């Protein structure tokens, strides 16, 4: 399992070289993963500079932990775990300091307010006036921000990293049924959030 994973995953091979002190391999690893991580954190936080900072934090943790890296799992799962931990730390810091510009975290229980706001905002984004893709992106991004942290991370890992249930569960320290439930609720909430826009689109 380990050998197969390491053999088939270029990132794992790069990480093994980094562990052995190959600085060039680390550069390759950063080059390979930076845009993916920035995209993940961009849709998670809604802020590009914050996303880059968090991606850098992930790389720094990877580098600090290089000596202890064991290819017991795919590098993808490992780095997704670190990314999830970094995002979790950001949430805890923002909760303590109340100063980070994270999008409003609307939980499932308190999503009604956010959905109402989405509906009100979407009223100004009727299809007749929704001329370009940027506005659609804003609607989807805002709908994504109505998810709670774990739902959003699960959706992003599934959608943009194309992780399987098992990989998401491993990265987020959840069981597979829990991930399925998480994604199901996220899907429903996304659908409700985008519904006003879709209704206007069909009319």
């Amino acid at each position: 399992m380990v050998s197969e994973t390491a053999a088939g995953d270029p990132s794992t091979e790069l990480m093994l070289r980094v562990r052995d002190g190959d600085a060039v391999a680390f550069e390759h690893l950063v080059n390979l993963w930076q845009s993916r991580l920035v995209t993940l954190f961009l849709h998670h936080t809604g802020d590009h500079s914050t996303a880059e900072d968090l991606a850098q934090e992930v790389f720094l943790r990877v580098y600090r932990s290089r000596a202890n890296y064991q290819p017991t799992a795919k590098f993808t799962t490992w780095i997704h775990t670190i990314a999830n931990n970094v995002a979790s730390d950001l949430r805890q810091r923002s909760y303590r300091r109340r100063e980070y510009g994270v999008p409003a975290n609307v939980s499932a229980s308190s999503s009604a307010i956010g959905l109402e706001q989405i509906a009100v905002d979407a009223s100004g984004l009727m299809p007749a006036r929704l001329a370009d893709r940027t506005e659609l992106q804003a609607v989807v991004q805002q709908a994504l921000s109505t998810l709670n942290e774990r739902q959003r991370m699960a959706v992003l890992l599934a959608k943009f990293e194309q992780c399987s249930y098992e990989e998401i569960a491993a990265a987020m320290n959840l069981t597979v049924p829990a991930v399925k439930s998480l994604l199901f609720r996220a899907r429903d909430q996304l659908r409700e959030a985008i519904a006003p826009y879709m209704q206007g689109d069909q009319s």
Partner: protein
Amino acid sequence: MTMKQPAEDAASPREALPTPVSDADATDPSLALADVWDLLDVLPAAVASPDMMASTIEMAAVPASAAISRTGSPIGTDSRATSGRVGRPAPAASWPSVRQWLPGAALVLASLLAGIAVGRATAPSPESALLASLPVVQHLDLLREAGSVAFLEAVAKGGYPPPRRPPPAQSKADVREDAEEFDAAIAALRAGGAVTADRETVSLRREQVLRMPEAQRRQLERSAEMFQRLSGADRSELIAVGRALADPGREQLLKAARLWHAWVQLRDPADRRDIIDLSGEDRLEWLDRWSRIDSRQDPRQDGRDPMRPFYDRERDPRRRPPPEFQQGPPQLWRDDHPRPPRPRGPGPGLGPALGPGPGPGPGMGPPPTDRPPPPEETQAPPR
């Protein structure tokens, strides 16, 4: 955006998501689940800034000595980062990291314990500091009255005389007893040993305090509290005074302290505290003023005490009538003429027109005599 292909052996969430046909909520024709999922595709793929990789490499190239993470954990000790599982320990990965920081942690712990031990050995505790200054604490009132070494030296150089009058409302026995108490306090101060002592002396003093009667220990505790409330400079000054008074070679300072004590005793007890609280200069000014007054108005010469309240002067036994009143009234008749008898009692009255007065009248008083009246009756009565 570089997208990783999903693992073939793992179920993809996209495959697991229900289709619009099978979704019970897909009865709403306005919304298809696939559309919701596909709508996420409109989210743009981010592009890292050009300098991000360079700054990341630069940040990662921090020397190992400074490679303490921002969370405070050394390299490789972030269990969540190294284990690959949130909150799950990874023994195979974490044990080497423990081996890395364990010697350092042990060294830090040993240094900490050694520092605490050295600190306890060198730095005296507050209790030990008090016990080291026990003679000062025990004679705090005496030393506070003395003030400072500089003040005592100024008093010694000033040549001030002792007060000529005794303290108010004190007999000679009281004055003598007070002087004996002062000398006893000085003797006890000298017998108490050094003001600052070594550890053995502190231990002996601790036992001495423990053997004290309860009342004496409480008094000592009050003095200790007062001593601790003083500033560091004041405490040092009192310790210096204690050393000076306990030094047999500085008798002039002891005489000055005794002289100052006698002057302070002239004041009422309520006023003595104000005098003691004066600064050294104010004390000297007060001593100058009252020593001048005392020298001008010697109570042994005129019998008046300027420091005695006016309402108390009438009861002063040393006060006598002025000399002109001590000679008696002027003589209005010659010595060869017989003096009229001095009426006894209220007298016969104010005159014949008013009739006899309330006095005893003729026949009721003593018989007239030719003897001259006693000398005190010829003098004016004292006021």
